[in-house]
C-alpha cells in the first residue's frame, strides 16, 4: 500500500466524491442554499423582464456597477457565505446527526484523505451552485440589452469580467469552505461560528493590515473586477484603498484556506464517534 499511496488516495477521494456529491446536491436541509443562489437570478431576471416589457434598456455601465454592488454585498458576504455554512458545516456534523459517519471511519481510509474528499465534494457542490448562479445572473442581466451592445461589451473586456466574477465565486467557495470545515469540528451549533466569522469579515475594514489578511473577504474584494460605487460614510465597507493584485490575492486566499484545512486535519484525527452526545 505504501508503494503507491497517491493512486490509492486518488481512488479513495473519487469514491468519497461519488458518495458525497449526490448527497450534497439532494440534501433536504440544503434547500435554502439553492434559494440563496437563486435570489440574484430572480432579481436581475425580473429587472430585465420589466425593461423588456416596457421596451426600454438601461445603461449597461450602470447595470454593471449595480451588479458589482450586489456581488460584493449580497453574493460574497451573504449568499456564498451562508451557502458554505450550510454545506461545509454539515459535511461531518450532518453525518454525525444522521448517525452514518462511522461507515467512513470503518473503511481503510486515512482521516486526512476522508477530509480532503469531503472538502472537495463541498467545493464542487457550492461552486457548481454559486458559479452557475453568478453566470446566470449576468446572463439575465444582459437580457434586455440589444445583442450588439452586449457583444461590444464582451469584446471590450466584458467577457473577462464574467470570468473574474465566476472565478471569484469559486474562490469564495474554496475559502469559506476551508473556514467552515474547521469550524464544524469546533462548534456543534452552526449559528455560532457563522456569526463569529460574519462579524470578523465585517470588521475587516477596521482591522490592522496584518489581521486583514486573516480573512476571506479581504482577498475576494481585491479580485472583484469592478468596485461598487458606494460613496459617503459607508464607502469604506466596499472600496479598497489598496486592492491586492490578483497574483497575491489568490495565493493569499489559498493560504488562509490551507491553514483552515490544516487545523481541520488535526481535528479529524481526534474525531470520535459518540452519537449519544450529539
Amino acid at each position, binding site marked *: 500500500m505504501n508503494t503507491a499511496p497517491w493512486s490509492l488516495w486518488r481512488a479513495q477521494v473519487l*469514491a468519497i466524491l*461519488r*458518495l458525497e456529491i449526490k448527497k450534497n446536491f439532494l440534501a433536504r436541509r440544503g434547500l435554502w442554499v439553492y434559494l440563496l443562489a437563486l435570489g440574484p437570478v430572480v432579481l436581475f431576471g425580473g429587472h430585465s423582464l420589466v425593461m423588456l416589457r416596457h421596451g426600454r434598456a438601461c445603461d449597461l455601465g450602470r447595470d454593471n456597477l449595480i451588479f458589482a454592488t450586489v456581488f460584493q454585498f449580497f453574493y460574497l458576504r451573504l449568499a456564498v457565505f451562508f451557502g458554505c455554512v450550510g454545506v461545509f458545516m454539515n459535511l461531518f456534523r450532518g453525518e454525525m446527526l444522521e448517525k452514518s459517519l*462511522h*461507515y467512513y471511519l470503518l*473503511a*481503510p*481510509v*486515512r482521516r486526512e484523505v476522508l477530509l480532503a474528499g469531503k472538502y472537495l465534494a463541498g467545493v464542487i457542490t457550492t461552486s457548481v451552485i454559486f458559479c452557475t448562479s453568478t453566470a446566470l445572473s449576468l446572463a439575465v442581466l444582459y437580457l434586455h440589452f440589444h445583442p450588439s451592445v452586449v457583444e461590444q461589451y464582451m469584446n471590450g473586456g466584458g467577457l473577462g469580467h464574467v470570468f473574474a466574477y465566476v472565478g471569484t465565486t469559486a474562490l469564495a467557495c474554496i475559502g469559506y469552505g476551508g473556514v467552515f470545515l474547521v469550524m464544524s469540528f469546533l462548534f456543534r451549533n452552526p449559528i455560532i461560528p457563522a456569526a463569529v466569522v460574519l462579524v470578523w469579515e465585517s470588521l475587516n475594514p477596521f482591522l490592522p493590515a496584518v489581521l486583514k489578511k486573516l480573512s476571506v473577504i479581504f482577498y475576494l474584494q481585491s479580485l472583484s473586477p469592478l468596485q461598487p460605487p458606494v460613496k459617503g460614510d459607508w464607502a469604506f465597507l466596499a472600496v479598497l484603498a489598496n486592492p491586492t493584485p490578483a497574483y497575491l490575492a489568490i495565493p493569499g486566499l489559498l493560504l488562509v484556506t490551507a491553514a483552515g484545512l490544516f487545523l481541520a486535519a488535526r481535528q479529524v484525527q481526534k474525531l*470520535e464517534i459518540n452519537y449519544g452526545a450529539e
Partner: protein
Amino acid sequence: MSGQEREIVFENVSKFYGEVLGVNRVNLSIPAGITSLVGPNGSGKTTLMNLMTGLLRPTQGRICVLGVRPDQPDVLFRFVGYCTQYDSFPRGMTGYQFIYSYLRLYGKTHTEAGELTVNALERVKLTDAADRKIAGYSKGMRQRIKLAQAIAHWPRVLVLDEPLNGLDPLVRAETITLFRSLAEEGLHVIISSHILHEVDAISDQVILLSSGYVVAEGKIHGVRTEVEEHPMQILIRCARPSVLASHIFELDSVVEARVHNDGKGLLIRTRDPDRFYLMLNRLVVEGVDLESVAPADDDVHSVYEYLIGPDGGSI
C-alpha cells in the same frame, strides 16, 4: 509472528467520557475464535468494541489489533470488519449500493467491488433485496445488510455489536452457523450479546464486563472454576438417586446433594469437582449404575449470575 500479531491486546486501557467511566484498566489478550462480550447495559461492551476499532480513543493505555494500532485505519480496516449496533444508514441507498460504495473506499475497482458485493449479499441471503432501498428493509434485513457490509472485504477480525438483534429464529441459526464457520477459518470473531444461551452455544471464550470493569475472561469452564465462592453444580442422572446420595454424603467436599425435581437424578454442589469425579469413578467400578454426569452451572448464564448478579441489567 509474535503474540501481539496474533491477538487483540488491551494494555491497561481506560476510557472516560468526561467524568463518566466507560471502561477502566482493561487488560485483555483475545485469541482467534469466537469471543463473546457479556454484561448488562452500560457495562462497557460497545465502548470496548469502539476502542478496538478506533471509533473511540482510549483516555489511557494501549490497544493493538493483530499488531496494528486502531489509529491507523488505512491499515487496520484492511483486515477488520465492524458491524455496529447503530441502526442507521446513508440516505437513499439500496442494499447493493451501500456495500458497493464503501468497498470502493478500499481502492477496489468497479468489477472487484461488484463481485465482493454480490458475494457478501449471498452470504447473508439478501440477494433478492439487493436493489431495494434500505429504508424499506425490515429490522432483520437491516441487521443483515450491516453484517454483509462488515464481511464484504473478507476481514480476519470481525467485530459484531449485538449482531443477532432483530433476526428471526431461522436467520438467527443461519447467522450463528456463519459465525462458527468464520471462526473455524481462523478469524477473530468478537460478539457482544444479551442473549446468554446463544453466547453460550457459540463462544470459545467469554469476557464478562460489569460497570466498565472486566470481571472475568477466558473459556467458560475456566472462568467457572475460578468462581470458588459458588460450589460447582453437577447433575448425575441415575435410576436410584437416593442410594447414590448416601454414598456421596461421605465426601467432605460435597456441600449439598438433592434429588432432582423429576426424581431421576441427583443434583450435587461440590467445592472440589476433580476429587468428586474421581470418587464417582470408584462408585461406578463398585457397581453403582449411572446414566450421565454433566456440570449443571458450567455455562455463561450461571457464571454471569455468580459474578454480576441476577439483576445486573436487562439481561
